[in-house]
């Protein structure tokens, strides 16, 4: 059983006992000292570490996710840029191709025209030369023929050339008249 100290005129319970006061304070200071200096900082640190391990992991994951998203966006943007660039280049190439084709066509046309023109000129020159040669040849043959027929040589060249020219002019006239008709 408990042992009590029962006093006849029990003292006022609201007057604190000095010795108990001292013991109480000492006990509290020991508790406070050990808890405050060592044990609670320990657990505070651990709780912070755990918080970091859990929330920090989540935060890190979120950060990685954001990073991945950003990279994806960048990649997409780059891809879109590249597509755009490719389309631009294709378009440019097409334009250039068309331009080149047009130029080449123009050049071809020009060369054709030049060749045709050169041909015409050649033909004209040939024709003219043939005409001149033919005129001389026909004149000479006609003269020879006439000489043989007449029996005399038409040596008078002036008369001869005049006769030839007249003949030829009549030929020309005849062909011209025929052409006109």
């Amino acid at each position: 059983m408990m042992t009590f100290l029962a006093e006849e005129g029990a003292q006022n319970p609201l007057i604190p006992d000095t010795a108990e006061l001292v013991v109480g304070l000492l006990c509290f200071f020991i508790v406070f000292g050990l808890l405050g200096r060592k044990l609670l900082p320990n657990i505070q640190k651990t709780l912070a570490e755990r918080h970091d391990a859990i929330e920090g992991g989540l935060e890190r994951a979120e950060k990685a996710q954001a990073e991945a998203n950003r990279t994806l966006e960048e990649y997409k943007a780059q891809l879109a840029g590249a597509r755009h660039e490719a389309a631009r280049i294709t378009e440019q190439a097409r334009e250039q191709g068309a331009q080149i084709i047009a130029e080449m066509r123009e050049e071809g046309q020009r060369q054709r025209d030049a060749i045709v023109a050169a041909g015409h000129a050649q033909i004209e020159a040939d024709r003219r030369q043939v005409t001149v040669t033919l005129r001389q040849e026909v004149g000479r043959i006609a003269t020879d023929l006439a000489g043989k027929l007449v029996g005399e040589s038409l040596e008078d060249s002036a008369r001869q050339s005049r006769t030839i020219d007249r003949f030829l002019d009549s030929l020309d006239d005849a062909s011209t008249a025929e052409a006109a008709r």
Partner: protein
Amino acid sequence: MSAHTLLAEAGCHIKQDCGFPAPGLHSFDFKPIFSIGSFDFTKPMLLAILCMLLVVGFFWAAFNKPKLVPGKLQLVGEIGYTFVARSIAREVIGKKGDKYVPFLTSIFFFVWFMNIMSIIPFAQFPATSRFAFPVALAALVFITYMYLTFKTHGFRKGVKNLVWISGLPKPLVPLIVLLEFIQNVITRPFTLAVRLWANMFAGHMLIVMFSVASWYLLTPTWLTAVSAGSFGLAIFMTAFELLIQFLQAYIFTLLASIYIQGALEEGH
């Protein structure tokens, strides 16, 4: 010394015709276990020291080498710690309260353990029902309160913080200043100590009362029923005290944090 032990009285029975040994103030005075000169080492002191060892021992075992993944003991300690840190310090003081968590935790667990001693077999006495222990702790709280008030606001604003309420009609000012002074500087520390002490005192008194009565009335007569009722009440009171012990430790700590908050806050 005109004292006589209650040992005989506690064992007193209705048949012995020695009168009902009603518990009273004498139930809270103990014969010294030993004395050194005028210093008497008594049971409440022993209990206080035991509680100190228990609190330190518990937190030492729980928090000395804390693990990231806590063991059972550490988990229990963490629940206790976070209870004070979150539900009291954070709730009342806010972020600034983190600094005072060790103080509040020490108060809470020391007081709670001393209260619990009330229903621990063989101890069966709350050390806090000896006024000196609540007084010691309330004094520390009060000193902290005053220190923080003047440290935060300086002397003039500190005094103002203690006695002044702004926005009062002029005629009321002297009265309110007086009342505020009495409340903050005199009543607060006094009631802080008395509240804890009186609760534990009364609780212990009730348990002793019903325990003694259930033995005193245990006779082979109709009084057995009363004895049984008394015994039932003793058990009920013991369970009830378990709640009160926690509650009083909580309230003491809560009020301490409210005072700290009041000291830190910018005037009112």
